[in-house]
């Protein structure tokens, strides 16, 4: 029978009881959205696919003890966590390589967390300062006030497309300023 219209809650309950069809339906429902989100952050098809794969395997293995209210929220959150883990691993690996390349230059280790936060904040402020006025206004509404593109379009009475354009521009500028905080391969991708 066609189960694709079953609610998320019903699917999760069924998965808890070992229903593989429900598992499949849930996969079909969210895999594309999850894949896209992961790809946008990692830029590697294989990595994005592996992240999606791992999350579903995890979900299945923990099906009996999971208590998931909002399964979509849970899945997208899992993507974020795994993207962060991946990036962290990349940075660690890169550092390791670099450390050996420079024969154990110690200077890098002197910076503490506090400095790191200052540096990151500086970089973010620099990025914001570099934005054109309109872009900055929209970026602030979007990131700091957490307004969606729709809401901003309504508030400023401009087309949503325009809002999205400005957000894209803003992120591009931010990325440039934050390049010290991105793994090298990500930086290389943009230069």
């Amino acid at each position, binding site marked *: 029978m066609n189960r*694709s219209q079953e609610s998320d809650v019903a699917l999760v309950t069924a998965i808890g009881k070992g229903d593989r069809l429900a598992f499949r339906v849930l996969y079909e429902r969210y895999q594309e959205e999850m894949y896209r989100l992961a790809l946008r952050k990692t830029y590697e098809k294989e990595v994005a696919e592996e992240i999606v794969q791992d999350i579903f395997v995890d979900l299945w293995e923990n099906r009996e003890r999971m208590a998931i209210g909002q399964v979509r929220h849970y899945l997208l959150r899992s993507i974020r966590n795994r993207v962060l883990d991946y990036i*962290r691993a990349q940075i660690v690996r890169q550092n390791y390589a670099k450390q050996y390349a420079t024969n154990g230059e110690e200077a890098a280790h002197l910076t503490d967390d506090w400095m790191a936060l200052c540096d990151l904040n500086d970089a973010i402020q620099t990025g914001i300062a570099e934005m054109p006025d309109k872009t900055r206004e929209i970026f602030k509404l979007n990131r700091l006030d957490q307004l969606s593109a729709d809401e901003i379009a309504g508030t400023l009475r401009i087309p949503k497309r325009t809002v999205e354009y400005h957000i894209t521009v803003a992120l591009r500028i931010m990325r440039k300023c934050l390049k010290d905080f991105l793994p090298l391969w990500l930086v290389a991708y943009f230069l």
Partner: protein
Amino acid sequence: MALNATDGFLKMLSRFRKGQSDAAEREAMEAWYDALDNPDVDFARESDASNKVWARIHERTGGNPLPKAGNNFRSFYRIAAAILLVCGLAGFYFMIYKKPAETAAVSGQVMHENNTAAAREVRLPDSSSVVLQPGARLSYDAGFNRVTRTVNLKGNAFFAVTRNEVIPFIVNASGIRTRVLGTEFTISERNGSAQVEVLSGKVQVQVLDQNGKPKASAEKVVLTANLKATYRPGRDALVVGLVDEPQKTAPESKSLLIFNDKPLKEVVALLEHAYGVEIRTENADIMGCPVTADLSGEPLASQLEIVTSALNAQFTVDQQGVLIRGGGCGPLPGTPHP
């Protein structure tokens, strides 16, 4: 100076990952995480990419409770090989002329029956997957995937078929034959009538006679995504319609479904793209008629209803997809819209 902040930054990253950042750190890290976004990334994937990912998930979660079609097949294959060896000792010529391995394989059937109360997934030797609903039974020749990929089904099942252009995948079920190359579809059976619903790809459905051979007189229908064919015994004709809940085959942003004085042509193109269903019109002129409608969040049938009723037209569904009949540009052309 790149990544000089690394050690401190890694600690921040760890805290952020665990949700232990304070407000200032979280805000900075959120901005950083947003900036990772690459809006220009190319999302295009191969058509079976998500199925391959699923295949790996299935493999990794396969575990013990699942019957593995592959294992049955392999053990059968081992027996067949043993028979071949015996035959080889018995007589070399016999082997050449009779091909006992083939004969042995052909005489064997692999059967999966779901006697449990829950759906059960079966893997076929070609790595297609079949989810059997309770009470469903699937059988196939042990030689499956060598020359043919034919299975017999009783009951209800969902198929995700691995693409193979050379060997079509054929399902015989409740008086109908469904033929595909690689796609996803469901076959269900109720009170003797059978139904095929297509999730993606293209399938061909044909009515069988009592001997299980395709009826010469009966039409073949080809279904694409979101179409279904229903067969009632005693009738040659397959009835084609839209599935109850058409699923979008291409992701579409919701805002794109608001039309303001757009020609029908554009609306049709968008729906065709979103659902993978072909939409034709009887009257070609109607394609230029302006349509103003908000179709966001509606299922395909309602979307078609809204559009056609605005144009005084009707729609029907056949195996080619949707046909919009009659109609014209509406009683109030050029009515100003706010």
